[in-house]
């Protein structure tokens, strides 16, 4: 489901126009960013948790040129699914 479909579904659910729905989603994500800014994580019960994680600096080596590279530390947003969601995933039939 892409964002267009998502907004149309969302707008129908909250009984708002798509434009309003779009602004609401934007507001939600902004408030999530605010939470990340203050080093908090955002947990949605029954779904999962978005959290900011720090990746430490590391040294990699290019096997072809044998050049060593220092990768600086960085912060990334990670999603950690809740146990409930994991259980639900098991119910989905295998894709093979």
């Amino acid at each position, binding site marked *: *489901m*892409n*964002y267009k*479909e*998502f907004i149309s*579904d*969302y707008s129908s*659910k*909250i009984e708002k126009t798509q434009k309003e729905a*779009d*602004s*609401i*989603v*934007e*507001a*939600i*994500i*902004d*408030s*999530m*960013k*605010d*939470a*990340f800014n*203050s*080093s*908090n*994580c*955002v*947990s*949605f*019960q*029954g*779904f*999962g*948790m*978005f959290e900011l994680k720090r990746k430490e600096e590391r*040294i990699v080596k290019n096997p072809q040129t044998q*050049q*060593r*590279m*220092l*990768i*600086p*530390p*960085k*912060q*990334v*947003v*990670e*999603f950690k*699914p809740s146990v409930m*969601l994991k259980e*639900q*995933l*098991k119910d*989905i039939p*295998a*894709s*093979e």
Partner: protein
Amino acid sequence: MNNEKLNIQDLIDSVATKTGNTKKDSEFQLKEFVGLMHDALLKDGIVKIKGLGTLKLQWNKSRKSVNIQTGEEIEIAGHYKIDFAPENSLKDFANQPFAHLENTLLDIDESQQKDLTDNTEEQIKLLSTQALEIKSILSDINSITETSSSNEQEQESSAEDTSEDTTTTQEIVSSPVDNTTLSSSNEETKESEEEITESANENENIKEDKSSQKRSSNKWLWILLLLLIAIGIGAYFYFFKWQTPCEKQETTAKDSTQTDSFVILEDSIQAIDVDTTAEYDEFYDESETTDEYTPETVTETDFCKDYFDFENCEILAEIEVAEGARLAWYSTKYYGNRDFWPYIYAANRDRMSSPNDLEKGQKLRIPKLPAEMTDADNEDAVRWCKECAE
């Protein structure tokens, strides 16, 4: 504040202020938002949300693994996992504190190689500085030898002045001798200087060649340089030693015309000793040794003619000059004493312009001389040769 888990209730306030909706509406909207994400993800396996990113279901194939504790082989069943790929805007936002950092190359290997090359360059630099030092030392040595040789010259001239005063009978003869000896001694000193400078040049050449080589040859360079310097100094002192007895001979010979002969004998014997030892100690450098004779020979025939008719005397032998030969050698061979060489020169005045003028293959007459003239114990004969030599 930090590291708190915020749930929907905590987000309601900020969402409500941003959208302008009531908190109740906001809570509903938030719950619906999460619920729709959840449903869509499970239904379609992928949800794209603008500003957040993509949530995607990913199938992990079953794989075999080992129970770490028991060592049993277990099979991890195939399963779905949720893959979250944040949007670029969210990535940038999250990485704001470290945004200024960039990947940096750690070319340690290359830098080490650079260090190595730097080291070799430094070594070469060191070598060149050492060469410069050696150069300065050599120039110092040269200056010292120059000054000392000039001193020597002065001494010689002063000695000859005094001897000139004392001589009464041979004053007329000895004055040209002084002039010639002076000039010839000038030549000698110049030549010796040239020799030293030549050797110094050679040293420099060798230095330049060697400095380009590696450190291992550094030792050999030093040894070679020291050897060359030692040879140069040795040659100079040899030259010095050679000079002093000549001076002694001059003065003593001239004094002898007036004073008693015992002192002269002692002096001359000493002089002979010094001469012979010096000769055997040093290399037989032809040019050097022939130079040494220059002052001694110019006027000798004047003396010789007074005593003995060399041109019409009996000839003991006629010899062919070998390479590097000197009159003193033949004197030693035929008369048993190297001091009697002026006899040979006197007998060959028509064939050679100076005692230095010995060429390879040249014919020389060895005059047959009375026994008293070639007797090393005969004071008069020895003295006569000394005079001739001067």
